[in-house]
Every structure is written in C-alpha cells, then in structure tokens.
C-alpha cells in the first residue's frame, strides 16, 4: 500500500525532526486537502484488497464520517471552492485512523504468507522414536 518513506528515519532523530517539522507542516498545508476538510488517510488509494478490508473494519461512525468528508470534498472541488477557514481540518484531527488498520492487515497477510511458506521439520525426539 504505502510508498517508501523517509519519515520513520527522520522521526527517530529528534534533531532532524525539529529541523524538518516546519518544512513538513508547510508541505501538508500546501497539499491543500485540509482546506477541503479531508484527512490524509482519506487520500489513500482504496482499490486494493488491503484497504478494502481495512475500510470494512472501520467503526460505523468512522465509516460514516469518512464518506461525509469525501462527498463534501467532491462538492467543493466541483464548485471550485474551499471551506471557510474555521472548518479546515485541524492538524490534531488529521489522525491516521485508517493506517492502523492497514498495518494490522498487512501484518496478517505477511504472516499468512510466512506460514504458507513454512518448512516443517520433525521434532528430534519424535524423529528418533520413529513416529
């Protein structure tokens, strides 16, 4: 799902994070989705199994809010308008609500792959006993 990112590496180094933070804030604002009332996780491409499953796992309220944000954004985009400033998405609301599910599902799928590819060895004691 996710593209390779430098973010984790930067987050690990506090000095680098302090240096990059203003830049990141500027970039997020410039991306313009907050002005349409969207959250970053609303922009994830959803045409794949992982995100599909993740969307199904959202709580009913979360799923409803997501659809509301998307429809409002379409409307705004078509009418070439932005939301009034007080309705822009606040940085503290811009939470990775979907990413946590996506990560969970990716681990599940990876685990399934691993288990499928597993090579099984007999326990030594059983092998000796001729089971």
């Amino acid at each position, binding site marked *: 799902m996710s593209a390779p990112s430098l973010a984790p590496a930067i987050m690990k180094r506090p000095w680098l994070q302090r240096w990059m933070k203003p830049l990141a804030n500027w970039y997020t604002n410039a991306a313009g989705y907050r002005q349409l009332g969207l959250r970053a996780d609303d922009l994830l491409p959803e045409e794949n199994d992982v995100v599909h499953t993740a969307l*199904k*796992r959202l*709580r009913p309220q979360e799923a409803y809010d997501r659809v509301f944000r998307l429809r409002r954004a379409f409307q705004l985009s078509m009418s070439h308008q932005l939301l009034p400033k007080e309705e822009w998405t606040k940085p503290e609301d811009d939470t990775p609500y979907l990413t946590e599910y996506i990560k969970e599902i990716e681990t*599940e799928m990876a685990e399934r792959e691993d288990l499928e590819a597993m090579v099984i060895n007999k*326990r030594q004691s059983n092998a000796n006993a001729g089971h």
Partner: protein
Amino acid sequence: MLSRTTACRGAQRAARQLSSTQKRGLAAPASGSFQYQSGEAKGVKFASRDFAGPTTTLALVAKAGTRYQPLPGLTEGLANFAFRATERRSTLRIVRESELLGATLTAHHSRENLVLEAKFLRDDLPYFVELFGEVASQTKYQPHVYNEEVLPMIHFAHTRFVNSPVDMAINSAHSLAFHRGLGNSTASASQTPYTKYLDAETIEQFSKSAYAKSNFAVVANGADHGEFSKWVGQFFNEVPATPLQQLSQGTEQTKYHGGEERLAHDGGNAIVIAFPGSSSFTGQFYKPEIAVLGSLLGGQSAVKWSPGFTILGQAKATPSTLVQTTSAIYSDAGLLYTSITGSAQAVAETAKAAVDAIKKIAAGEISSEQISKAKAAAKFKELENGQDIRAGLQLSGNGLVNNSQAYQIDEVAKAIDGVSEEAVKSAAKTLLENRASVSAVGDLFVLPYAEELGLKV
C-alpha cells in the same frame, strides 16, 4: 515372542503402578485412574489424572455458562471468541500451530460452564497450558472479529435451535422449572439477545469476570500432576485474580417453580415432562435414587433391534418415537426430564404412558428385577462418564469451581449401589406430589395438556 528385557520392563511398570494405585475389590472399577488429583497453583484451581496413553485432554472450565450471564447471549459470544487473536498471536497462528502439533481445539458451553478444550499429544502440554492462559487473559475482542466471525456462529446456533422442537421443549422446560439462572436458554430463541445486548466490548467486560482466577478451573486428563501444576503456576500469571465485577446473576440458590408451556411449531412434535431432580454429587442436594429412577424410565435401548428393558422403551407408542429420560445435574439443583419426539399422535400416547409409568413405580408395581437392572444401567452410565473424557472433565471442573472438590466417579457409583427399592418408590411418589414442568412443542391440537396427562402444574 517377548524378549527378556521387554517382559521385565512390563513387569516393572506393572509393579510401579500397583504401588501407586489403591487396592481394588471385584465390584469396584479400576479406580486409581478415575480419581482426579486436585490442587491450586497461584490461585488457579486445577485437577488432573494420569490416564495412561499418549494423548492429553486439557480443559478450562469457567463458571460462565448461560446461568451466570448478566446479559443474554454473552456466554455464546465468549465461547465463540475463544482461540481468536490474542495480544501475542493471531487467530491464524493459533490454528496453524495447533494443527502442526496435531491438536484439536474446541469451545462449548452448557448451562453452568463455559469449556475450552484441547486434545493433543502428551509432550505438548506446556504449549497448550500457555495457550489457555493467553486465551483467558489476552484475547483481543475486536469489533470486526465479532461481526465477521462470532456473530454468524451465534446466528447459526439460533437457527439450529429454533428448528429443533426437542431443543426448544427442553429449554422451555428448564425455564419453567428454574425461571432465571438455570432456566436461561442455552441458545437464543430470538434474534433480540444478540442484536440488542451483544457487542465486542460487552463480551470483553464479561470475559474479565468469567476468566478471573476464582472463577475457573483447569482440568487435565492424561497429564502428570506435578508437571501440570508447574505449568499452570507459570502460565496463568496475567489472569486477573478477582472478577472485574462480581457476577451476582444466577449465584443464588436455585428454586424450583414448575408450570406448563405450549409452543406451536411446524418442524416436528416434542413433549418434555420434567420434575425436580438431583444436584451434582459435589452439590448439597444429591439424590442417587433420581439417577436410578431416570434409567428405570429410560426410553432408549442399550442393545440393537430391541426396545430395551426400560419401562418407556416398551411403553412407547411406535418404534419410531424417540424417548429419552435424562437426569440433568447442576451444582445446586437438578432436573429429571423425559423428552419424547415423533409424530403428534405417538408423542401424545407416549406422554400418557410416561406419567402412568411413574404412577406405577410410586405404587410399587415394579418388580425388583427391573429396579436392579436400572441400578446397573445407572451405575454403568456413571462409570462411563469416567471413561468419557469430555463429561469427566466438565464434571470435575464444575465441582472444583462451585464446591471446591473434584467429581469422584467411584464414589458416585458407590452411592448408586446403595439405593434401595423403597427410595426409588418414594422418589417417584414425591415427583407426582410436586408441580411438574411440562412443555409441548409442535401440533398443539393433538398434544395433550399436563392436566390431561394427570400431572400437577
């Protein structure tokens, strides 16, 4: 041909076993292996017996059956959440790992108990004790798991339940007899319980009370007692010592009420005639004569191509009518019930015959030969419980949690041996004097009322 060393080893083993078990007389069962040794490790009650053989059956018996559920459907929900993803491993990993070890995992519930059960090879004991500890303390009660995996199972159970007249009749007889608590239905009769009261969060809350140390026992069949106690002490550390909230539901002494219920049903005909019965051997109201009376009434044949010696087996209207008398034992009460299924006409006739049979027993018109046959059958059934691992595990666990002693099958068998003819007669007399619980499900035009059968309700 036996080599010298093999014969020697066999003899040595036999000698060792002889010293460790009790002496047995002719009539006593090979009892040493039937006895459960019980103990406590860091607040967790456990019992085990070293049944010879290469496999082990491990069960966690929690006092969280439908009797104790604060909201309808919680027990079913919790049973279906067993062996799902925990904090440490996913559902898939649990399934795959136990498959690799050749094990079977099941979770089921009765009126009083929620039972998690695993059957596996003897060597794998630590793995499964750890798994049980994890299931009890670290299961993740995720909403999507509830929606995708748990809810459909509850719904299947509901569908199966409403399509089976005999299940409906048995549950209805229980609820007539005990009202709340023991009378709670084991499956949902309507969709309301699980659509209205149940969600993942409620089940999680319930799990914290159900899987508290004071509320469950771990029972193993085919495990060394010392080893088992070591693993139990090691792996149940994260389980809460006391329930999150004290469950008051169903803990008061059960009271017998009685009454009659009639339900129309298209899928078949069933009548259940129930009377107050005997509590479990570990409880206070143990009456061995009820078990004998149950097998005297009987209904099912023990041999093929014959109606059997039991009174109802011979009195039933048609060969295709199914009759069964069960003495259901619970920790503080019991229910002796006869369930009859078949065509409406036959069910009606057999129900009449059943009541007549009880009257006959009460009047003493039964030969002593028949009573001794019934005693033998009841005793066999008890001792078979000792062989039947599942029943034994649940009975012992139940005894440990409720009355802090394990169910000792040998002693029960002895109690049945001591039942006199007089006791059976007077038991039958008391049945008729008390209010019965009668439930008829099916074609209500044909099925008789309790009063027509000659019962007091």
